[in-house]
């Protein structure tokens, strides 16, 4: 296992900059998720590490070896593709053993190693089947087995779970995380599913338009999103973002949607940059950091209940604030009766303020 380092890597396709000056280190044994919407450059970043694309500029290291311009075969990485890329004309033994066959491992040793890995991944009794004769979940394991068997320096996963149905995906997620821990592998993991990234990764790299928006542990990016993009991308439902502006004379933030004044209170001390009257800002608050009440308060804004969605252990309430919908998450099985007109009280200790450029101020 080895550490992976990207230094200022840029890759363009024609006029499109797919990866824009990305610098990143994946430590030995660490699983880093590359997270972002489609077209954000996460898959291209992975393919650059694999050697399936060659960067326009910047350098890539695996271990202490520079691999920037080396072909994939000289990088000693294993890759798992979204469509599994199992060869339909080979049985699982030949599929999983293919990396060994290519390296000229003797037939008997190959059989033993494949059997050992397949047993560990609980597909040991399927080795004489073809990919078309096994389930999607088993195919996914087989493609992971093929990556495990050749004991590469690093694993690269390209949305390996997105072809599975929801239930299997949760199973496979737990299985992959367990595998990653027991094998102690260095891995880069591309996904557009923030829940998957949160659940699996040691650290998350959030990308947009080819740029890294934030790098941090799952809890860190969840608790301290550095910009409105990350705030809106992480969390389900995502953070509420309310456009607002500052009214210095009153010492309040005016919420744009319904012109409701919000006492700055605690926020005032936390503002570390110079702001002036009328600056258009964005208030960010997670659904679980809002409480609903019938009475007004200094840190409360009025709204109208739109719908309530009971989800079992919690209830999701959508509240209309002006023309904007705000999600509120309440951790109770049964919601107390609420009037139609409610007051949303924000937990100002867990509320963020983003500047005109979308970067975090508070």
């Amino acid at each position, binding site marked *: 296992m080895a550490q992976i380092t990207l230094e200022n890597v840029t890759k363009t396709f024609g006029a499109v900059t797919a990866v824009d000056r990305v610098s990143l280190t994946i430590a030995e044994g660490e699983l880093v998720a590359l997270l972002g919407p489609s077209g954000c450059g996460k898959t291209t970043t992975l393919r650059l590490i*694999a*050697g*399936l694309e060659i960067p326009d500029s910047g350098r890539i290291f695996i271990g202490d070896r520079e691999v920037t311009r080396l*072909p*994939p*075969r*000289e*990088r000693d*990485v*294993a*890759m798992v*593709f*979204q*469509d*599994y*890329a199992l*060869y*339909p*004309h080979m049985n699982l033994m030949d599929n999983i053993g*293919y*990396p060994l*066959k*290519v*390296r000229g491992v003797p037939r008997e040793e190959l059989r033993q190693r494949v059997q050992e890995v397949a047993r560990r991944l609980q597909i040991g009794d399927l080795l004489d089947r073809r990919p078309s004769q096994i389930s999607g979940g088993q195919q996914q394991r087989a493609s992971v087995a*093929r990556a495990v068997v*050749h004991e590469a320096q690093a694993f*690269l996963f390209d949305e390996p779970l997105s072809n599975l149905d929801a239930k299997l995906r949760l199973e496979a997620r737990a299985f992959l995380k367990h595998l990653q821990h027991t094998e102690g592998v260095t891995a880069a993991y591309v996904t557009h599913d923030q829940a998957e990234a949160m659940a699996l990764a040691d650290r998350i790299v959030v990308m947009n338009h080819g740029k890294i928006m934030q790098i941090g542990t799952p809890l860190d990016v969840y608790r301290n999103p550095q910009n409105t993009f990350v705030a809106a991308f992480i969390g389900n439902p995502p953070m509420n973002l309310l456009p607002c502006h500052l009214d210095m004379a009153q010492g309040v933030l005016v919420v744009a949607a319904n012109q409701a004044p919000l006492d700055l209170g605690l926020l005032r001390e936390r503002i570390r940059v110079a702001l002036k009257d009328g600056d258009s800002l964005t208030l960010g608050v997670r659904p679980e950091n809002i409480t609903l009440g019938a009475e007004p308060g200094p840190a409360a804004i009025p709204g109208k209940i739109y719908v309530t969605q009971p989800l079992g252990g919690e209830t999701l309430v959508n509240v209309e604030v002006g023309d904007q919908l705000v999600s509120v998450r309440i951790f109770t099985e049964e919601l107390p009766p609420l009037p139609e007109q409610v007051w949303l009280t924000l937990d100002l200790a867990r509320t963020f303020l983003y500047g005109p450029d979308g970067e975090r101020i508070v």
Partner: protein
Amino acid sequence: MEQQRGVFSSRVGLAFLTPALFFVVVFLLFPFVWIFYLSFTNQTLTGASALSPSFVGLENYARLFDFDRWARAGEFGSALWITIQFVLGSALLGQAVVGLTIAWAFYRRKGLLREIVFTLAVLAWIIPDVVVAFAWSAFLDYEQGTLNAILGALGLGRPDWLFRYPLISIILFNTWRGSAFSILLFSSALETIPPSYVETADVVGASAWQKFRDILFPLLRGHILTDLILITLWTFNVFTPYLLTGGGPTFKTEVVSIYIYRTAFKFFEFGKGGAIAVVVMLINLTLAMGYLAMLRRQKASA
């Protein structure tokens, strides 16, 4: 599921089919039966047997397979052997191998070079026979030909291609002429292979040859068989070399289609010509059956 029914009754359907069936019968079925009949007679265009042909049984066939003389130049055995070399050389080694190589070389690549190569290949394929034959005559001509002008300028000698290497010339000609079909067939077949298959092989470290042998070839096997069926049959029956060499010199490029033509339309021996045509058709049928059986086995195992 309910069985799907046509819009028209079968009687109306038959009415629609009739014109097509009529032409099939008149221009395909009837000539075939007629040739089969002719092959058992001594029908000629001129002379006594033109007016009153008589039934000669298997005599025409016996003359074809007269093993004392059939391997001599200008005889059936010789024509058959030339045809086999022509098919092996220009269809299997030529078009199929060139087609696969070019298709693989441009696999998932875009760009000007690909456009140029594909356009030229398709042009060579769709230009009318006579034009192409004339172009190649001009290309290969001993005195004035482009090829010899180039070779001469490079000091590589100026062979008389159509005289000294007639069979090689028509093999090269037919390879050039027909490779487009195989290129197009293999390119579109390659497009159906997910890129991740090849990329997985790249990442695990497979060489170009290993990728071809272990992944592309097995996945393309059905397409390769289809390609071989078609180009073998086409090449077996192709007549265009006649426009380049006339079958000569001294019958050295006389493939069976030219042999049939010479027998039936130069010597006007319709009976014997018919017999050759029937034998050639049986050979084609055998080839096609063989390929189809392989294709069926391939499908069953896939």
